[in-house]
Structure formats: structure tokens, C-alpha cells
């Protein structure tokens, strides 16, 4: 394992921890997006660029969008 790979794995571990410890859903959505970027870096370093691109579009476009829309809807309902 080269140092860069070790750093990437550690980043992903820390990112996962950060997602679990964020309690506010809105913050958690943003942290999850950053965690996705850490995974993208991991995949690039391990020479899987196709998977990295898939992870990039899913974790920074599709997934946060759906979460944010759901959160916005819930917020609108709480404050009539």
C-alpha cells in the first residue's frame, strides 16, 4: 500500500464517521456529499476512474438533490 492509498482510506473512514455523527439532517446531507467526494478520491487513487465518475455524479447530484427536496418539503410542512 502506498502512502497516498493509506491517506485515501483514512479519509473515507473519517468521512463515514462524520456522516454518522452529524445529527442535523441538512448538515448531514452536505457532509454525505463531502464523504462522496472522499470516495471519489479513493476510487481515482485505486485506478477505477469509471467508478469514480459514477460515484461523483451520484453523490454530488442525484442523492443530495433528492434529500434536499425531501427536507425542503418537510420544512414547509412544519412551518405553515
Amino acid at each position, binding site marked *: 500500500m502506498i502512502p497516498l492509498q493509506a491517506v485515501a482510506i483514512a479519509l473515507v473512514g473519517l468521512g463515514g464517521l462524520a456522516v454518522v455523527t452529524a445529527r442535523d439532517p441538512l448538515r448531514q446531507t452536505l457532509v454525505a456529499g463531502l464523504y462522496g467526494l472522499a470516495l471519489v478520491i479513493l476510487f481515482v487513487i485505486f485506478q477505477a476512474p*469509471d467508478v469514480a465518475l459514477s460515484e461523483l*455524479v451520484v453523490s454530488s*447530484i442525484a442523492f443530495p*438533490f433528492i434529500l434536499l*427536496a425531501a427536507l425542503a418539503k418537510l420544512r414547509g410542512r412544519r412551518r405553515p
Partner: protein
Amino acid sequence: MSLRVRLGLFAVSGAVLGGLLVWALTGLPAFGDFQGEYGQILNNVAGHERHVTNVVSSVVFDYRGFDTLGEEFILFTAVMGVALLLREARDDRERPRDEARSDAVRAVGLLLVAPTVVVGLFVVAHGYLTPGGGFQGGVGVAGGLVLLYAAGRYRAYRAASPHGLIDFAEGTGAGGYAAVGVAALFAGGLFLQNVVDLGTKGTLAAGGTIPILNVASALEVAAALVLLFHEFLEEVMYPE
């Protein structure tokens, strides 16, 4: 169950699980030890068998094209389910005026719309030459479109993605993928067999049916994502 019994149960099951984990970890192959025969073979043959420089695309749209057909229809069905659950007769109602108010969000967002769509299209077009392909590029294009809403106006976003056109694109993408497979039968091959001229390796005209399936899946993915975004945004835009 009392607290002591619970703790005892946890101690026993925790110890067993921990022991099993350590046992499994010691039996793992060494770091970087790759045993995938199939991958090695494909790396050697895909280049001259399919004239593609991105082996992954030859797996996704050719050697394992049938699996991708299934995935296309998983996405198609999932989005159809969302639409069935969420879609109401709202299209006749007037679109709400909803605009991004922050100047910074507007400026950065609108600047990003065109580059995001272009990068998405680039990733689709070069899917079988460089990393990327229909799925990644398709989501990118949909993401660029939705930026129109995030950084501009909901009306502008809906005007740029009319429902009829998006439904049509989704159907064409999913149906087109299956149609290419059936067309191979009429050409005397097997379902989804690569029967088209393979072209020159390293150019856009390479890979036979791979580019066609690539574009079909890009259409399907981009349209499915935009439809998904529509349904979710409608929920936000029209509070009950």
C-alpha cells in the same frame, strides 16, 4: 429481560462476532492481490475484439450488455413508480414564481449550467474511449439542467425540460436499448450481439453497437433523473 441478562447476551454474541471477524480478516488475500480471471482476460482481448480503449464500456455495453438492459429497466421502473406515487394533475396550474435570491448563488450557478451540461455530453460521447459513459454523463446532463432551478427560476427549469419531451426521451432510451438487442436477431446474430462494423480503435467511430447502446442509456438515465427531479420539485413547489 433484565439488564444483566442483556449485558451477558451482548458479551457472548459480541465475543463470537469479534472472533469471527478476526478469523475472517486473517484469511483475506493480501492487499492488492487480484484474482479476477475474467478481468485479466477482458483486459487482454477487449481492445482487439471490440476496438474500444475503455474496457469497462465493452463490459457494460457488450460482454455484459444484457445486465445493463436489466439495470436500464430497473431505473425506468423505479422512476415510473415515483411518478405514479407523486404525480398529480398539476400541469394545468400556473407555475409558481420561485427565484434564487442570492446574487452569489445566481452568478456561480448560472455560470455552471453550460459547463456541466457540456461535460456531461463529453463524458457520454467519449464513454468507450476514456472513462465515463451513458450513466455518468446522463446524470451530469440532468444535474446541469436542475442547476437552472437551483440558481435561476423554477419556470426556466421547467421550460428547458418540457414533460412531453422528457417522457419521450426516457421511453426512446429504454426502448432503444432493447431495440438494438432485437435488431441483432434480425441481422442473424444473438440478442444484443455486436453485429455492427467495429470501426477504427481510438476514434469516435469504434465499438460497433457499443456507442449506440451508450447513447441510448445516456438518454434513458438523463431523462429518468430529470423526471425524478420534476416529481420531487413539484412536491416542494406546491405545498398542500
